């Protein structure tokens, strides 16, 4: 829940109507309602991109006054993010924020991300998980390895390169444009972070709470290794 000062902060901010909150969703009928209920209290421009869900995600989304884009086939997270970007450009939004549909992020963290974005004039704001110790050992080690490899290659300490909670100014759209698709569609967040770092965008990182559900799968070792290869690739060729 938000405290009074945070609520005042929101009310005093005129720029909230210039930000689009995008939620890529696939088979999230259990979580999407609570996510939208939380967010719609504070933001009026919300876009859900449904990736041809096979459950009742669309029906749940339709209960809320939000924009809904429905893909006829599952194109993956990366393409959903591109759809959101296109929509934001057409509707002339200034900022675009992404949040996961599985309910792992809190609304007040999204507010913190958005506030940091335009009040401090950052190009990209990334929320990083501060409760890493709650992850199991394998995932914790994986995250630390990724952090260090990233630091080694990009000379910048980014604590959660793959965070799903992020927002950016649309003016840097061309600098951070991502091409991850197909089998590596989940690497779009990491690619955005890498591109923003290479192009010396003004990046801010803020700690966020992450609710790690039992269904949270994360990446397996092979995907982790593949991501490392891609991080090296982006460093050389992007």
């Amino acid at each position: 829940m938000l405290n009074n000062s945070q609520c005042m902060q929101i009310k005093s901010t005129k720029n909230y109507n210039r930000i689009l909150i995008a939620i890529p969703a696939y088979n999230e009928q259990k979580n999407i309602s609570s996510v939208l209920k939380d967010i719609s209290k504070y933001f009026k421009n919300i876009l859900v991109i449904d990736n041809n869900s096979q459950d009742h995600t669309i029906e749940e989304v339709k209960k809320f006054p939000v924009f809904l884009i429905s893909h006829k086939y599952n194109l993956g997270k990366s393409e959903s993010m591109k759809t959101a970007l296109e929509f934001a450009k057409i509707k002339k939004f200034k900022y675009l924020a992404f949040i996961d549909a599985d309910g792992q992020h809190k609304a007040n963290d999204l507010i913190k991300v958005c506030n940091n974005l335009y009040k401090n004039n950052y190009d990209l704001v990334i929320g990083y998980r501060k409760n890493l110790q709650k992850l199991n050992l394998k995932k914790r080690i994986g995250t630390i390895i990724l952090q260090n490899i990233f630091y080694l290659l990009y000379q910048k300490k980014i604590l959660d390169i793959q965070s799903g909670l992020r927002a950016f100014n649309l003016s840097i759209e061309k600098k951070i444009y991502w091409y991850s698709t197909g089998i590596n569609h989940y690497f779009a967040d990491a690619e955005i972070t890498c591109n923003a770092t290479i192009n010396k965008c003004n990046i801010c990182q803020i700690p966020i709470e992450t609710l790690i559900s039992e269904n949270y799968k994360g990446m397996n070792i092979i995907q982790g290794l593949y991501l490392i290869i891609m991080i090296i690739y982006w460093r050389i060729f992007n």
Partner: protein
Amino acid sequence: MTIKLILSVIAIIISLMMLYINHVNYKKKLLNKFNYLIWTFIWSLVIGASLRPKIIDIYFINNYQIDIFYILSVISIITLIILYYLNLIKINILEKKINNLIRAESLKNVLDKTDEK
């Protein structure tokens, strides 16, 4: 000798299977007549070469002093790489087209609705 025979048998079985798959794909209209005939010719050639490998061996050794196995290995590897590359490019182009089409259509639907409002 036995290894050569086993390799020939394997090549013939695979070629016959490919001839059948080629025919099925032609019936499904996934291949046009020209493609069908070309691939039928190629697989028939492989069967012919597997049945009488010595004819080709003698021809190449007599005329060019080279071993047919060496030529076939090089040609096969190059062909495989070229085919893999072409397929990859074609798949990527198709994937891009489909993605753009689906995204454009979904965007159009939602923009039409918001414009109506």
